[in-house]
């Protein structure tokens, strides 16, 4: 039957009917015990009751559904074939056109991101959700260095996010450090942890590396839970100060100058939400700029070559140890920055926020986006963060929806949403290059 589904030739209507009838028959066989018969509690005794109308409705739905599904698949295949034929004719011009399109999409996304809080200035929910998306975009771009470029499968990325968040939390609550002072320190701290993880795993690859990084992520979380004197244990760290606008706090008017009073605005709690949004947008854009710049430098190319073939890399004279450690350290540093922002935004952190689930989502963003693709990470973050949000009405089914979306992406786009890789270097002949 499944062979029939993918038949290349046009199929007759009778054949379609026969196929659907076969499906309906199977539905009937399965449906008799599962739908047709049911037990009813009658005065303490179980009695078998029949539900034939429901069964026939089910069989009918299966019949119609199968008919439609097959027609849909055939139609889609025919469309795709003719599209492929048209594309192969024009494939020479296609490639630059796609990259131009992608670049335009990137600029458009940036524009949308810039005006979003202005359009939704009084809708806290939208700006908050967009901020969450941007945190994941930034985390995705950071992990992209490790997984997408250097090809080191890291399942414990959330550890660096946690290190950044706790470093800021502790510096701010214990020593009164501000956001901007703590940011570089937390980044350096996370990078150090990146090297701590990277050093013993230098010789590991693929699934073995994945297991060790998974363990590392858990170790950090377990330490945070148990080392109560340092981290507050399961209670976490509370009342972490929010970032200020160059020293101007977002507070109701009081004795000292605040953001609102300095600019002569009326105080509104939205101002802080919008400021946080622009802050993470700026951090994410800096990350993007930084990573895309690195990709074009020798170190970025060495990361990619290392992902492709480690032995060949060494034979080219590349020090594999330094290349791997730099990828771990830089990826961790970016995760640490995101963690600082997270702590500052929430005002409260606890080990709850840094479970394996987070690592899995960040990794899913990188993989679904297309390993190494910057715009792909944005699209995947949108899908993976917004889908559960939109799915709130589905209550307990939302994870099902989430899973189904991931499976569909993997079926249609096995290499990720944007699997195309832009070369970092264009050829100019020696004459033109000189």
């Amino acid at each position, binding site marked *: 039957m499944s062979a029939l589904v993918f038949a290349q030739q046009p199929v007759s209507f009778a054949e379609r009917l026969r196929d659907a009838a076969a499906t309906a028959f199977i539905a009937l066989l399965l449906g008799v015990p599962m739908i047709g018969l049911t037990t009813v509690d009658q005065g303490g005794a179980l009695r078998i009751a029949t539900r034939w109308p429901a069964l026939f409705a089910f069989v009918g739905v299966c019949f119609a559904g199968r008919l439609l599904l097959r027609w849909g698949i055939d139609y889609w295949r025919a469309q795709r074939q003719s599209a492929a034929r048209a594309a192969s004719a024009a494939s020479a011009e296609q490639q630059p056109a796609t990259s131009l399109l992608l670049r335009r999409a990137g600029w458009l996304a940036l524009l949308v991101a810039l005006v979003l809080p202005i359009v939704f200035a009084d809708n806290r929910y939208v700006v908050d959700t967009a901020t969450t998306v941007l945190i994941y975009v930034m985390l995705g771009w950071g992990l992209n260095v490790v997984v997408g470029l250097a090809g080191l499968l890291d399942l414990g990325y959330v550890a660096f996010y946690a290190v950044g968040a706790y470093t800021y939390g502790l510096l701010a609550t214990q020593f009164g450090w501000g956001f901007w002072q703590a940011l570089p320190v937390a980044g350096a701290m996370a990078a150090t942890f990146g090297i701590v993880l990277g050093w013993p795993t230098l010789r590991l690859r693929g699934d073995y590396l994945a297991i060790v990084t998974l363990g590392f992520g858990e170790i950090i979380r377990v330490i945070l839970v148990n080392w109560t004197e340092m981290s507050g244990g399961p209670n976490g760290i509370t009342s972490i100060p929010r970032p200020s606008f160059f020293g101007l706090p977002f507070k109701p008017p009081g004795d000292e100058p605040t953001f609102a009073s300095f600019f002569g605005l009326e105080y509104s709690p939205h101002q802080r939400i919008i400021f946080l949004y622009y802050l993470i947008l700026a951090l994410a854009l800096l990350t993007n700029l930084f990573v895309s710049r690195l990709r074009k430098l*020798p170190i970025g*190319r*060495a990361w*990619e*070559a290392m992902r*492709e*073939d480690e*032995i*060949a*890399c*060494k*034979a*080219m*004279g*590349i*020090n*594999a140890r330094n290349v791997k450690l730099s990828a771990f350290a830089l990826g961790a540093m970016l995760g640490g920055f995101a963690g600082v922002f997270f702590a500052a935004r929430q005002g409260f952190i606890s080990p709850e926020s840094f479970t394996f689930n987070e690592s899995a989502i960040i990794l899913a963003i990188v993989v679904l986006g297309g390993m190494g693709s910057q715009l792909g990470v944005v699209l995947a973050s949108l899908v993976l963060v917004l889908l559960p949000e939109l799915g709130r009405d589905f209550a307990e089914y939302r994870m099902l929806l989430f899973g189904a979306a991931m499976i569909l992406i993997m079926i249609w786009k096995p290499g990720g949403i944007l699997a195309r*890789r832009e*070369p*970092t*270097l*264009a*050829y100019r*002949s*020696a004459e033109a*290059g*000189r």
Partner: protein
Amino acid sequence: MMLRLSGVHAHYGAIHALHGVDLEVQVGEIVTLIGANGAGKSTLMMTLCGQPRASAGRIVFDGEDITRLATHDIARRGISLVPEGRRIFPRMSVLENLQMGAVLADKANFAVDLERMYTLFPILHERCEQRAGTLSGGEQQMLAIARGLMSRPQLLLLDEPSLGLAPLYIKKIFQTIRELNREHGMTILLVEQNAHHALRVADRSYVLQHGRIVLSGSGRELLANPEVHAAYLSGGHA
């Protein structure tokens, strides 16, 4: 003397792969190493590159003992390996592959070296923006050789460059090897299963058997040697 191996042993875990190999390469020579599957040819090549390190014996390159050096440090001394199975970077473009080959080289030479490679292998010029993984096997081998040359090495190590290639490409690859040596003075150590081609191109040759050098001599001598003929040449090679 450019390269001298004396009494080199190598182990893969418990497997003793090389049993005291002595081998020499002089400046400007093509030296080939032939032998059957599993004789230790590729192990010898990799041991030269420090992976695995020699468990006993000495490897001296250009007067310096490189036995204990890390792979990338050996490459920095001017030894360039074109590995078995090509090992190009498949998802990177042809141009980026060549650029990776030039990591150690002076940046100022890049444009000139690139043109040199394009002259040597015009097909690479045609395909320069293409993903390297989409090239045919023969083209990938040319890319691997070109990548190895981009660092301007003093010694080029070629590990089974004819492996799995069509006869036409094999011919072209050996032509190139000869050209590199005769016209550009490149010193080459070549490991090959294709003994016929390897011996014809060689100044001197070694035969490796079960991790030991059992015969050596000029390419012509070994071609005429009845034992070599029986063992390595009568298998249907033209």
